């Protein structure tokens, strides 16, 4: 009797555990996004906002809606755009204080405490994958209603509390980082190191976003990134993105 195939989420979770047993420099994290499966629900965007407690104006993973063709031959494509985690990132050498760099695992990270907020990395990124945190909160314009179940005083507790990017608590009080910093997708490193898949991967309703260690020949992603229908954004720039799109 044939064994029922495992759900891809389960397989990716197993891939992740194997990768974490290796030395960081031996891992090659990649993301594969199957555009044929993406329905444009934006669940990944919202999951990312919730996971990283992103304030207004900061987005790590928008879903681009692109219309192609002219009537009657029209189609609409949804293109989720996380950080490309380039092998040759143009955003890192321009940083005047090395606050953004490729870590041992090849993920481009931001040292929030070092970043001076010059936004040179935002200018250099060819994918518009970085945004600047100007210190807004979603709840700041809510009315303060004494006794109300949902008023600013109640609802802003969540926003004001620290987030845990890069495995550290970041409080937003007193213009503390990451306010004033460049911010970007980091493939949910804090989740990865805890053995969890990135929030956008776990949340994708169509299993359109896949993640894993490309150096592991048994991983889900290793199978996919060499398919002939794989493309990467702006390949002509030579940035060698680690995000692959299946078209």
């Amino acid at each position, binding site marked *: 009797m044939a064994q029922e195939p495992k759900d891809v989420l389960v397989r990716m979770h197993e891939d992740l555990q194997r990768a974490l047993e290796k030395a960081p420099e031996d891992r090659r994290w990649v993301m594969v996004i199957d555009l044929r499966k993406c329905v444009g629900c934006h669940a990944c*965007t919202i999951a990312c906002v919730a996971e990283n407690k992103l304030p*207004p*104006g*900061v*987005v790590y993973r*928008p*879903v*681009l*809606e*692109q219309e192609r063709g002219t009537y009657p031959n029209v189609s609409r494509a949804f*293109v989720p*755009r996380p950080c490309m985690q380039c092998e040759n990132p*143009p955003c890192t*050498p*321009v*940083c*005047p*204080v*090395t*606050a953004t760099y490729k870590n041992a695992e090849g993920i481009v990270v931001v040292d929030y405490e*070092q*970043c*001076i*907020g*010059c*936004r*040179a990395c*935002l*200018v*250099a*990124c*060819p*994918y*518009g994958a*970085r*945004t*600047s*945190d*100007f*210190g*807004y909160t979603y709840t700041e314009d809510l009315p303060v209603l004494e006794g109300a179940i949902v008023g600013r005083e109640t609802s802003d507790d969540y926003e004001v509390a620290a987030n845990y990017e890069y495995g550290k608590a970041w409080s937003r009080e007193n*213009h503390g*980082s990451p*306010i*004033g*910093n*460049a911010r970007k997708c980091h493939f949910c490193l804090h989740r990865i190191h805890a053995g969890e898949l990135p929030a956008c991967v776990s949340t994708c309703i169509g299993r359109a976003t896949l993640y894993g260690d490309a150096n592991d020949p048994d991983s889900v992603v290793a199978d996919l990134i060499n398919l002939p229908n794989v493309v990467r*954004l702006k390949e002509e*720039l030579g940035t060698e993105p680690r995000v692959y799109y299946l078209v």
Partner: protein
Amino acid sequence: MAKKQEAKAASKGFNWKSLTKAELAVISIGALAFILGVWGLYTRLFVGEREVGYGSYVVWGLWVSMYLFLAGVATGSYMIAVLEYLFNVPMFKGTGKAALWAGLVTMPAALASIGMDLGHMERIINVYLRPNFMSLLAQMVWGYTLFLLVVIVTLWFAFKRPSDTFFKVVLWIGFFMSIFLSGGVGALLGVNASRPYWSVGLLSVQFPIFAFASGVSLMLIVVGWFMHFKDEEQRYHLFRWLGWVAIALSLAKIYILWAYLSQAWYSQVPDVMVPFNEIIFGEYWWSFWIIQIAIGTVIPLVLHMIPKLAHNKFWAGAIGVMVLIGFAAARANIVFPAMSVEMLDGLPNAFFGPHLNIRYFPSSLEWSVTLGVIGAAILAFVLGAEFLAVFNKPKTEVK
């Protein structure tokens, strides 16, 4: 017996009564600009930068443009000072201190303008403690800091030991720094291969030329409105020389602009054409056609051709002001439009929020801060020049 004597040497020290009408007028303008800037400076320093117009897509705005402009004026002023002290051009005798003082005032103004743009300006110290010299920005911060020190040392030598051999060494160092640093701000933009409109070699080439032209324009103002000459012939010769240089630089500027824009036009590459169209026909058309071309280039060129006006003290200074305004607009026309390109098709409409826009116009906060910085620079320049007596005013004594 009362006798009016003219001192041989200009005296130092501040005296309100000795201010000329031109100086008082410029001080009033500077004070007004500074007062208008107080709100912006306070807001930016003690409230934050939420009220700015730039953001995550149009990443750099008015303050970065003003940094490029003021840094150009500072380096250009140094180039002018070199004419007197290093190359001993006779007609520039007596102008070097004013040029150096202008450089010393505009350089901190440039750094203040770029400082306002930082999300964490208190961390600028990190650039000195942990610099990444692969970054043009780090190179510029270090370069301009050293340049500032060189200007201070040069000014000291100009006052104290103008005949010292070491003065020449400092001048050579400052001269090369002024060329490379003015080009460096062009490279700061040009190294971004992801911005095809900037990523051309021509960008960093034009900046030293523009800087020298800025210095010449500033000298027209100084010579026309502020400087005193024992022999008015010297002023006349300076007007003629500065006028010819200004015409040559204006023609060079027009050619460079033509080369830059025509290259963009003939390429027909969409990422290059978007900024091109924004400048020529789009949102910034008035900044290009009216300020940069008409006020900053064509009108000064025409005025230079009319000797009666070109050699008139007021009009010579006015020409300088017009050219400088044109250069300020030129920097803005290089910075803003290049960022009005969608980095990926559909990106600006993919997620909505504050500062996620590819349309940009400086906010009232940005204008206010810019007025404050420029007002402070004008005040510092004129008042400081009076204190240091760099305008060679004759001292009048009553005995």
